[in-house]
């Protein structure tokens, strides 16, 4: 245990160092990179809650991300709300959609669940592309205004550059990840893990399987939706490509390589897989080919990810001595 807590403290210190690292370089590029890391950290933690804890392979995460993005963008541009009021509303709306999708798809088998959540994401792309009066179709909604912070008796701060936007992302990410962590170690988190291990047994112990599953879907939908709502103000445009399968594939890689069900493993993987390919300047096609190969290898050789592999090795070591 001592060994483990020391490891976690040093890991936490390393992550903290990474959080403030963009301030060492005086370049906007590193802040942009930091924003990408934050976004993917929240997204992959959301998928991890569903796949790693309960074993629901949901492809609807990218849909919640995009719905949150569109909701906040539309509220800000067409109803001239500020981003700070639009974000919670986007979160609530995504949560309601998540509850609806969860309620309808959870009654089906696991096979149908995967296909239905995937179809839901695609349906969202089609709606975003075709409901032109609301979303402006493929042209998207460009020129989203930069968020401002209005403190009375001080001048208005305009967050129009990645340098200023990054702290907002960081605060949101830390809050969201803390919530995921608390949920994971709470009674609910243990119930979720019990459901993954043996669903009939869990339900015989008085755990309401359906409501726990829906709760997990709603929590990850709300947090992914809000990060989506924030992310488009960094992009300054929202178009149907926010629902791109690329986000799903990246989330999957981070969760699978990091280790489904391992909070820290997935967090490390989402940092690594957001930063390294960007720093190496891979062509994006080749990057996805490499991700695909990694995914295949990981499924065949490391079904529990790197974290699962380390855990197994430790378990073996304890058994021998």
């Amino acid at each position: 245990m001592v060994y483990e807590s020391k490891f976690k403290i040093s890991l936490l210190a390393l992550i903290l160092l990474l959080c403030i690292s963009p301030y060492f370089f005086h370049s906007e590029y590193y802040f942009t990179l930091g924003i990408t890391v934050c976004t993917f950290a929240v997204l992959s933690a959301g998928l991890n809650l569903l796949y790693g804890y309960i074993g629901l392979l949901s492809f609807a995460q990218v849909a919640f991300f995009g719905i949150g993005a569109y909701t906040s963008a539309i509220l800000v541009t067409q109803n001239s709300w500020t981003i700070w009021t639009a974000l919670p509303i986007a979160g609530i709306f995504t949560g309601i959609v998540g509850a609806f999708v969860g309620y309808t798809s959870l009654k089906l088998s696991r096979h149908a669940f995967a296909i239905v959540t995937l179809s839901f994401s695609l349906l969202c792309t089609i709606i975003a592309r075709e409901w032109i009066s609301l979303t402006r179709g493929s042209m998207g909604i460009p020129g989203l205004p930069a968020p401002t912070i209005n403190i009375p008796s001080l001048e208005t701060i305009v967050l129009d550059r990645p340098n200023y936007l990054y702290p907002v992302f960081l605060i949101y990410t830390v809050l969201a990840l803390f919530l995921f962590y608390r949920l994971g170690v709470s009674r609910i988190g243990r119930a979720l893990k019990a459901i993954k291990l043996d669903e009939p047994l869990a339900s015989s112990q008085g755990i309401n399987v359906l409501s726990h599953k829906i709760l997990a879907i709603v929590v990850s939908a709300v947090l992914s939706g809000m990060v989506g709502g924030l992310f488009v103000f960094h992009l300054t445009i929202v178009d149907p490509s926010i629902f791109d399968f690329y986000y799903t594939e990246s989330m999957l890689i981070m969760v699978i390589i990091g280790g489904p069900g391992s909070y820290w493993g997935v967090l490390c993987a989402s940092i690594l897989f957001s930063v390294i390919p960007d720093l190496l300047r891979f062509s994006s096609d080749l990057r996805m080919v490499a991700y695909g190969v990694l995914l295949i290898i990981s499924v065949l050789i490391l079904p529990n990810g790197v974290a699962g592999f380390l855990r197994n090795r430790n378990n073996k070591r304890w058994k021998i001595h």
Partner: protein
Amino acid sequence: MDITFLIQLLLNGVVVGLFYGLVAVGLSLIFGVLEIVNFAHGDFYMLGAMLAFFSGMYLQFDYFISIAVVIIVSVFIGYLLYQILIVKLKNRSFEQSILLTIGVSMVIQNGSLYLWTATPKMLSNLYSYKVLEFANLTLPMLRAIASIVTIITFSVIFWIFYFTRLGKAMRGISQNRDAALMVGIDPVRIGLYAVIIGVTLSGLAGAVLAPIYTVHPTMGFAFIFKAFAIIIIGGLGNISGTVFAALVLGIVESFVGGIFQLALVDAIAFIFMSIVLLVKPEGIWGRGVRV
């Protein structure tokens, strides 16, 4: 609205439905025998179309010869896919098989984007720009030929499925895996045949449809989602249900597109699927989406 127009819409719908069926049947077969949802199915369709394009444009192969070439290559790809990857999954969970096929799909799709770029390619051959006319109804020559090839393929598949020992074994496995094993059916060998047939059907669809639609690396993507909806509507693993659902979808799309001129034609498959799932979750003839 005159009757000719409606019959024309019906004809178009049936033809498109046949094409959907060609892709969906392979997907349904692989699911029925192996319980694997093959996310890479659309990419084999794309590879078939690419191969047909290159053999037609650069090697000047005839339409039918390039179809034959694609069939041979697809059998080989199916064999490799099964022996190198799928067989290693053994009894892993269903989600692992999805992840594996997504990985395969990412490699094929992005590899093709890198090699051949996203530019759509047009394949034209002897039969392009020719139109069959019959009693005020028109049907492009290529679509007519493709429909005939599809009907022949369906006949062969139905013959295999309902009149041979292999088909009996496949149906046995998809009805009850354990019982099939008990009576001496080898699931590994039957799985190999199912994957080969499934991948070949997908490749064949690509080769047949290459001159009708444009060929590009992400062409399989939109197609495969409709195929997913179709196999859910028809009941996962049910071959006849799949063909029927494909035809119905093709006809409904054609009528909705022709009469209402909706831009949302692509969403019909999903709306249709949602209704079926809400009303009858086991599919129209399902052996059960619920487990």
